[in-house]
């Protein structure tokens, strides 16, 4: 293929996007939606994965005391906690400290709840020496008098893992479905262009155009739409990530959710997804036209 031809064919492909702008726009919108939804599911799954990891690697456990427990009694409980084997550290965390932290994040909302109206319990933050004895240690802690509940993050991690498994299936399903939708949309757009150009295609064949030559404008069209759509989808995902990150920052004291937003690998994946759906869509839609000759193409 000569350089002249490549410039000419690329221009032809871009022209047909313009001439066919309604279909091009429609398929761009559908593609963007497909890529955006796929991306959202992937982001969600990545975030859940990381959160599980973060929770699992954390060996601190919060022990909430009964709210009727006085401060002297709490001290005693603290001592008893330290006596339990496998406890590496034990730190008292008063309800005043707790309400202080909440009001830092939420401001005036918490003002009325300070002092005697404070509904939060006193607590201990403990850490363990050996995580393999986790369950046994938790059991001993929960048997102590005055202990109301134990913030057992392992439970959360377990539930998250279950959710994550479901998300994985959804992820695969979503990617498959949207890949099909994307291919269908792109190939139909290109097919429409092709239909509008069937006279040209038949003439091209009769004057000796190679199949590659006939194909290129349609592939350019598909790839351009795909590439453009992936840019838009990446921008939208970036926007979504930023919003989520902002919200999470405000919630930092209450959550251990880890969210990294869209990264380079994902961006590349999206560009590739856009380009390949455009390419494959362009290729499959023209096969029918390339197999026929002359008047039969026009009659299609």
């Amino acid at each position: 293929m000569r350089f002249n031809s490549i410039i000419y064919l690329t221009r032809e492909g871009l022209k047909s996007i313009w001439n066919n702008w309604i279909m091009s726009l429609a398929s761009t919108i559908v593609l963007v939606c497909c890529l955006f939804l796929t991306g959202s599911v992937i982001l969600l799954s990545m975030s859940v994965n990381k959160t599980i990891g973060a929770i699992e690697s954390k060996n601190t456990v919060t022990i909430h005391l009964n709210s009727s427990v006085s401060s002297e009694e709490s001290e005693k409980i603290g001592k008893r906690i330290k006596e339990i084997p496998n406890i590496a550290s034990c730190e008292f965390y008063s309800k005043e400290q707790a309400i202080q932290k909440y009001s830092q994040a939420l401001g005036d909302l918490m003002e009325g709840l300070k002092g005697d109206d404070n509904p939060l319990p006193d607590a201990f933050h403990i850490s363990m020496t050996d995580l393999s004895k986790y369950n046994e240690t938790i059991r001993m802690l929960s048997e102590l008098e005055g202990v109301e509940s134990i913030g057992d993050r392992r439970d959360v991690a377990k539930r998250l893992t279950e959710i994550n498994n479901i998300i994985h299936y959804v992820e695969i399903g979503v990617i498959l479905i949207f890949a099909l939708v994307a291919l269908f949309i792109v190939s139909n757009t290109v097919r429409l262009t092709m239909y509008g150009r069937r006279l040209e295609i038949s003439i091209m064949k009769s004057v000796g155009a190679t199949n590659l030559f006939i194909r290129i404008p349609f592939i350019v069209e598909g790839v351009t739409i795909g590439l453009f759509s992936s840019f838009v989808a990446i921008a939208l995902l970036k926007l979504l990530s930023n919003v989520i990150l902002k919200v999470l920052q405000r919630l930092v004291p209450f959550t251990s959710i880890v969210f990294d937003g869209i990264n380079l690998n994902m961006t590349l994946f999206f560009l590739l997804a856009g380009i390949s759906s455009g390419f494959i869509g362009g290729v499959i839609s023209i096969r029918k036209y390339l197999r026929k000759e002359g008047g039969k193409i026009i009659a299609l």
Partner: protein
Amino acid sequence: MIEFKKVSKEYSNGICAVKNINLNIQKGEFVFILGPSGAGKSTLLKLITREESPTSGDLIVNNMDVFFLKNRQIPYFRRTMGIVFQDFRLINKMTVFDNVAFAMRVTGASERAIRSRVPYVLSLVDLADKERFRPTELSGGEQQRVGLARALVNNPDLVIADEPTGNVDPSLSFEIVELLSKINHQGTTILMVTHEHDLVARFNKRIVEIQEGRIVSDVYEAKLANEA
């Protein structure tokens, strides 16, 4: 240049459009293929252009047996011939210039080559002043001359015309054949299909008459005129 040896063509629907044809066309000849509608004239041409392939027999075009032509060789094979259609097959949204240039672009010709060759070919068919026109702004005869220019632009050895005068005013048909004749005088082999007896009778050319897929006569105009 073209040699049919016992060539038959049966379409997939069972219709046998060409039956056991033997025909030899030398380089530089001008041949009319004459016959009524449905006689198999277009099929004969489609076998030459490899739009269809023979069911049996041998067909040699430009020293190549079309039977052995691979799919990827077909485009290059077609570049050795120019094809003119009854319905012109011009692209209405392109100018006359671009319609002709189109056939050159397909072969990967440079813009420079196109800019020098296209005006020359348009002047051959007497359309030098209509370069910027669109097909819809031209008469039928002029449109067909654009089609002819497109067929000639790659300097083919063979021009194949399937009823080029079928959609043209009878008074202008003569002019088209004259043009083909002029091109033939420069050495290009011409194969023209028509069912207009009156038209072929006005030229002194070889006439191959086909009926129901068979050649019923292969003569020169002079002889045909004698019989009449």
